[in-house]
């Protein structure tokens, strides 16, 4: 009984620090490390290592997933990221990733388009996508 309680406590604490999963279409076999993911989501890398054009999908800035992704993967606060993108948008050098509302919308887009990459709370992952990194 004690053991089970411990295990469920452990499970609970994992879900409290849910973590972020970076996901792609199951057919995508590109190599993606943290640096490559950072470059893709900051507009510095425009293709997967398999040569296909990459379509990054981000989430509304109010979502927990976005806050965690910005902090752990992009190492930027929301304000820093907004300043970074304003610099590119108003000089014709880049456009920020397409933004959707939540994990479910990301999962739908990723599972239906082989050129997309997104991030979701680890708990939202299912078999329709492939996890390439967790943070």
């Amino acid at each position, binding site marked *: 009984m004690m053991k089970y309680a411990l295990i469920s406590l452990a499970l609970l604490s994992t879900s409290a620090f849910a973590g972020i999963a970076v996901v792609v279409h199951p057919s995508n076999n590109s190599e993606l490390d943290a640096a490559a993911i950072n470059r893709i989501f900051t507009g*510095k890398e425009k293709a997967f290592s398999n040569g296909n054009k990459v379509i990054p999908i981000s989430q509304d800035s109010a979502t927990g997933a976005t806050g965690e992704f910005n902090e752990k993967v992009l190492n930027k606060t929301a*304000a820093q990221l*907004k*300043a970074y993108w304003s*610099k590119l*948008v*108003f*000089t*014709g*050098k880049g456009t920020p990733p397409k933004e959707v509302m939540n994990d479910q919308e990301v999962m739908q887009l990723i599972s239906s388009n082989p050129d997309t990459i997104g991030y979701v709370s680890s708990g939202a992952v299912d078999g329709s996508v492939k996890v390439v990194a967790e943070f």
Partner: protein
Amino acid sequence: MKFNYSLIALVCASLSAHADVNISGFASINGGKVLSGTGVPHYGVEPTFLADYPIVSAYTEDFSFKPESLIGLQVSAVLGEGLSVTGQVVARGANDYNAEFEWAYISYELNENWTVQAGKKRLPLFYYSDFYDVGYAYVWMRPPADNYTWQIFNYEGINFLYNGSIGDWSMTANLYAGKEDDPNNKLLSDFFFQSPTREIWEDILGGVATFSKDWLEVRVTHMQYTNKRFVGGVASIWDGKDSRDGKFYGLAANADFGDWFVLSEFNRLDLDGNLDTYMVSAGYRIGEFTPYVMISDFKQDGTGDVEKHNTKAIGLRWDFHSSAAFKVQFDKVQDDSYDLAVAGDSEAITFGVDVVF
């Protein structure tokens, strides 16, 4: 059968003609005044803080919102297959809020690395040149006036934009060529010659390369142009010729460690002798607050009464809203020239709110 194909082609064409139009924008509402200053008595210039040279954002001892407030609107139509059209209109308090197109260009992605752009764009001379108007994008009230003393800040021409990587380094580059003919240059007309001045920069040819990795970013640039000038309709003559060549060299390095950051820029313009400028700034992020300091310097090569001025600034940025920042900055300007004095010594306070939408 043939008919079917043309129908399909028609449908495809009308689909791609259906443009995805984005509207975005930025605004800065800034105010300020000179706390104390010498002005330039022998030119009849009252105590003045010239916060910006090309736009002539001049603060005096009377508090004003006009010199640096602006609003910009950008409309971008994405036409598919890598083609887009962008227009940016900016209305400045310094120009009585007359809205003007500052950017108007067509952009076409050749491949994942190269994009070609043609039309009217901002000349990417200094690090902050092309997003100078977007106050939200940088920490200070403005990039330092001592460095950004250019007369021409737009050009019409063609630009090749490169995005790629070398090993672990990300690289972006610009190669551009063009011309600008400004029939009534504000800086030269209103401030320096006090007579309508037409300023021409032609055969502009420039390159910019920016390398970034982790916490470090380095930008190098070179640009050359041929300058012609008509003051009150009369051609300026330099060494017996009605034109002169300018060569610009720039190096910028930024280090960002998350909390701490250091920004720097070093420039040389060789135009009948060297004009050297530099800027060094550092800041520290504490949650929504970013206090910073900056020094900037302009020096004309030579002895005697050369153009020489510097600014020391201290300020604070507060990201009080997800799309807006409040800033306040104190500037102390020292102008060491007599004949080439710009606006004299001054101490000024400026503050404002920058928004992006």
